[in-house]
């Protein structure tokens, strides 16, 4: 049997084996994760708690906030002129 053929068989066995083992482990880990998260976090309604202050703490690089700021200023000025 040629060297390449031996290598190929090794690779097939090792490769397909790893794929199956990896995804099997992933099935288990995913189920565990979902179980844990559903048990401990669902009641708190994560969508809300996860972003407590999205509007209050973004960086300089957020133009929406700057736009909102400048709109607010404009309004403020108009109200006071």
């Amino acid at each position, binding site marked *: 049997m040629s060297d390449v053929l031996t290598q190929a068989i090794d*690779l097939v066995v090792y490769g397909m084996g*790893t*794929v199956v083992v990896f*995804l099997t482990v*992933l*099935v288990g880990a995913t*189920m565990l*994760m*979902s179980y844990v*998260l559903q048990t401990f976090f669902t009641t708190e309604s994560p969508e809300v708690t996860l972003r407590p202050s999205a509007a209050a703490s973004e960086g300089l690089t957020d133009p929406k906030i700057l736009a909102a700021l400048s709109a607010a200023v404009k309004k403020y000025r108009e109200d006071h002129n």
Partner: protein
Amino acid sequence: MICIGVLLLYLAISKNFEPLLLVPIGFGGILSNIPGVDIAVGEGVLHQFYAMGIETGIFPLVIFMGVGAMTDFGPLLANPKTLFLGAAAQFGIFATLMGAVALTETGLLEFSIAEAAAIGIIGGADGPTAIYVAGQLAPHLLGAIAVAAYSYMALVPLIQPPIMRLLTTESERKIEMTQLREVSQIEKIVFPLLLLTLVAFFVPSAAPLLGMFCFGNLMRESGVVDRLSDTTQNALINITTIFLGLAVGSKLRAEQFLVPETLGILVLGMVAFCIGTATGILMAKLMNLLSSQKINPLIGAAGVSAVPMAARVANKVGLEANPHNFLLMHAMGPNVAGVIGSAVAAGILIMFAGG
């Protein structure tokens, strides 16, 4: 050779064969074969795109990040067992690798182990993964491998249904599946990190591909960097796709492409798709034997990847058997599982054959 470029453009424009890739690839292929000017070699602009984006691996990794940012793992998380289907369908990759080596044994063609691995990855039915692996293991075959991968992905609606009908009974195709549960945002946020952790432990060689993929997905799901996620899914992936396609086209020069190996690659790639489809379905049937919660074996075919085409095909064939049978979301699970599975396989191939 220019005719092949025109053929690819025709298929892309007129038949809608993966146009986002095949228009740039086909056009790049034409440019590369214009005699009397160096566009795809030396200082030529397409060769520069190739050198900066594919030799380095950057373009396929960035595309994969974009694909991650477009992927919704919800259906997979709602039914994690469909990951087995994504695993089984990767057998197409390894069977094809064996096929390429067997061809070498017969003396008909001659492929090294690295070349055989690069050909096998066509069976992964995932464009950026195929280009990344081919760029690392067999750059001289990249043109044929990319063309095969995208063409067969476009042909999924023709290739898969006969195999699906052959391997399933009418009553199996009629199986209705239970409604998927809602998946919470926090599960979607933790999943890419969990996946990356397992990759780090078990197949670190797949970490560049799956790392970028998980990063894109985390940007999407975290909800705090929407502007980065939006740009990744739009401007960035589009720009990269254009240059990736042109760079792949630079590998369609006649002297590299019009060789017997290309024919072998096209045939082997087709075999890979068929085997992957079949093993996906058979795994689904095996799971039905072992579990009481029946799944429709058609969704096993979606395990090859070819997102979202293969899932749509499963849905369509399912509807033919049972007009109330909506398999689309159920098939999205194995569909994205197939992306993970072939990226894992890619990591192993690169580690094993790239040394």
